């Protein structure tokens, strides 16, 4: 508690930031931060593009979050100003104004101004950034009345809380002077980013590592950041990753970079902190997706029977080692006001499942089989595979024969989301702070064939579609929340998709790292206050 707001100097304004620092200070356990050292981070996958305004993905933020900063970040207490210091919305929701921080310089020495925000918003966020193109489809222009004021103009009302929820991920300005007049998709800075963050990009060796080093001119003051350097190592094999952690070659492994068995094992090792803290903004659902074009699955009773046949608690214990909870629809329990647990549920009950299947007109044949399903599991690693096998075995017990069809990622995505060549599928889908920019695409009809993680299930409800659209532009947060509660209830009743298990990601972190996981999207954040106890 000896860190006072005063230490942040005049640049840091706003109560939000002060709270954030206080939270961090608790983790630091009253130790004096030390300067210097290199933090080494294991990454399982490699995004290859290091421009958060072109690729909206935690894999990108994990690295670029330290180099390129968003307008706003999220703390446990709400929104924290980063490159924007203040924000406000017009009454009609058609104009949102950001006051930009002054005195911030890009790593190449140029000033950060509204031109950067305007250029990025119009050319990348609106045009090229996945998910953001939907969010910003009504953005007409970004005006710059002065170099440090950006006014976003919309043709339809933009709810402020939606905008705020989206901005930490989808609101990274890029340096306009380096992108203007170039082919944005092939710009060299997409893989060698220039930002305003506490670390400067140094080197990217594909398949090996990314290095960033301390930005000595960081706007938060010269004591930040504490670390000299951050290195991200790409280790795809999860056993090798665990070994690297134990051998001390790596300090942190995020987004479940090691196997669940190793997660459990390392959680008992006092060299490591293991937990889900810091992922509140990045919760995912393990799903069961139905192809409603199959008349058997179009029958609600069958879908409900399948839900009853799944022993979710056992799956959580065996597959996720307890680091998860049963899902309650498209909004996870970390979804804040938009979440409700007042929804219908389907407790594990084999007999009931069998009875419902009988009732639906699918009695067991002589061989005990009622019908067959072709199931496509997503190849996203250990737990999607195990979950698929768990699912198949569970259904076998109620007389549904499941054939698992394995494919690699493009094969899976094409098979399910373009060709609809499946009966059931499983995977996971990430919740991105606000239902409007994430899980609602599971329910909203009308996305063209071939769009992954959208409603390609052959399920459509006019009521749901209308409610989703209304919620996306509803300006009153309470009314919005109520609409999402209703959507959750419908989703749990109609079961277009089973949001079976809600699981945050898990990090294994060396205790040498101090001040880690102190924000709800910590792995994507800038780590300016992270330090290494050597």
């Amino acid at each position: 508690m000896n860190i006072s707001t005063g230490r942040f100097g005049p640049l840091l304004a706003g109560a939000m930031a002060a709270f954030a620092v206080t939270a961090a200070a608790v983790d630091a356990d009253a130790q004096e931060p030390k300067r210097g050292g290199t933090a080494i981070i294991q990454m399982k996958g490699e995004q290859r593009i290091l421009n958060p305004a072109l690729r909206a993905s935690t894999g990108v933020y994990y690295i670029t979050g330290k180099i390129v900063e968003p307008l706003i970040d999220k703390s446990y207490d709400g929104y924290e100003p980063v490159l924007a210091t203040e924000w406000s919305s017009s009454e009609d929701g058609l104009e949102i104004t950001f006051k930009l921080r002054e005195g911030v310089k890009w790593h190449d020495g140029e000033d950060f101004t509204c031109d950067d925000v305007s250029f990025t918003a119009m050319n990348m966020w609106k045009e090229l950034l996945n998910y953001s193109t939907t969010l910003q489809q009504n953005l007409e222009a970004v005006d710059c009345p002065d170099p440090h004021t950006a006014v976003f103009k919309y043709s339809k009302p933009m709810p402020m809380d939606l905008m705020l929820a989206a901005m930490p991920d989808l609101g990274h300005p890029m340096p306009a002077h380096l992108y203007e007049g170039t082919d944005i998709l092939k710009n060299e800075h997409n893989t060698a980013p220039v930002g305003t963050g506490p670390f400067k990009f140094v080197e990217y060796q594909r398949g090996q590592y990314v290095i960033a080093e301390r930005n000595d001119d960081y706007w938060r003051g010269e004591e930040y950041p504490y670390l000299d350097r951050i290195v991200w190592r790409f280790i795809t094999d999860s056993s090798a990753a665990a070994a690297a952690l134990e051998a001390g070659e790596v300090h942190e492994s995020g987004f479940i970079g090691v196997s669940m068995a190793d997660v459990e094992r390392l959680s008992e090792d006092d060299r490591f902190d293991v937990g889900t803290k810091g992922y509140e903004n990045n919760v995912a659902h393990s799903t069961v997706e139905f192809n409603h074009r199959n008349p058997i699955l179009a029958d609600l009773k069958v879908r409900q029977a399948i839900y009853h046949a799944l022993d979710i608690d056992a799956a959580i214990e065996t597959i996720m080692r307890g680091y998860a909870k049963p899902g309650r629809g498209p909004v996870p329990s970390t979804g804040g006001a938009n979440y409700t647990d007042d929804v219908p549920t389907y407790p594990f009950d084999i007999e009931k499942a069998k009875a419902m299947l009988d009732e639906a007109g699918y009695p067991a044949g002589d061989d005990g089989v009622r019908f067959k399903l072709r199931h496509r599991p997503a190849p996203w690693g250990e737990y999607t595979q195990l979950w698929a096998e768990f699912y198949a075995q569970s259904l076998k017990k109620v007389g549904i024969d499941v054939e698992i069809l394995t494919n690699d990622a493009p094969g899976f995505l094409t098979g399910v989301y373009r060709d609809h060549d499946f009966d059931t599928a499983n995977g996971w889908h990430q919740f991105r702070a606000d239902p409007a920019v994430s899980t609602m695409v599971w329910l909203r009809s009308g996305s063209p064939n071939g769009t992954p993680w959208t409603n390609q299930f052959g399920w459509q409800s006019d009521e749901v579609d209308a409610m989703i659209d209304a919620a996306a532009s509803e300006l009153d947060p309470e009314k919005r929340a109520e609409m999402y509660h209703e959507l959750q209830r419908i989703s749990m009743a109609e079961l277009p998709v089973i949001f079976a298990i809600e699981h945050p990601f898990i990090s294994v972190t060396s205790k040498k790292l101090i001040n880690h996981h102190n924000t709800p999207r910590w792995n994507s954040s800038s780590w300016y206050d992270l330090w290494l106890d050597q």
Partner: protein
Amino acid sequence: MSLAEASALPPEEPSRALVFWRRYRRNKAAVLGLFLLGVIVLLALTAGLYEPVDPLRRAGEPLIWPFQDWATPLGTDQLGRDILAGIFHGARISLMIGVVATLISIAIGVVIGAIAGYFGGWVDDVLMRVTEAFQTVPNFVLLLTLVAILGSSIENIVLAIGIVSWTAPARLARAEFMSLRRREFIEAVRNLGVGDMAIIFKEILPNALPPVVVYASVIMALAILLESALAFLGLGDPNYASWGNMIGQGRSVLRVEWFVAAIPGIAIVLTVLSFSLLGEGLNEALNPRQKKG
């Protein structure tokens, strides 16, 4: 001293099978290989008798260590599946993969090699260019590509393994055919007016087979290793308990519950070893080069 022994036949020789077995038996390691293979075949045959009959079914608590609970003598994996049941059924799958993939590759290889070796000339040139092309592409990369295209069902994996392993038997068959087609007994049947196809398949093929049969044991071993490597990369067929799948899944618990991967791993090592030893024995029995008495 009569030199006219023309019509006196030498004493009748023991049957081919007996001679073969005598030669084979001389190699102790090969006999061990045959024994191992016998055990594996027995496992495969009796897999249906062992409970649980479905090796993918949850049989107990997850990750029970071997020899702890006699319901699951070799322990269970992460999903509580009985490892011993997996070993039983995996023997079936591994043998099936080994045998079928080998048959596919030998069939392709022998036909191509036979035609190239027998006809020579431009036919040989074209077929050998194709063979070279296949041989130049790293086989595992080709295998990955084929599995990506066909999907990971067990039939497709076997087919893909067969497709990537035919070049060696093709070259072998070609070499045999090239040398055999110049042999006098082939000239003799050509001189009798026997057609090309009959010469290829009825006259040369039986004589060209021994080295191919020996090589088949190598392919069988390779096929099992290739399948396990695919499974390790997560491209196995999850509908069957193959040993490769078991290792692939067991590797995530390798550090503590190492037995989940090690038991099927040892099963693979022993199976491949048995094929290799078998191959050595076959080689000495079918292509006796070193005269040992």
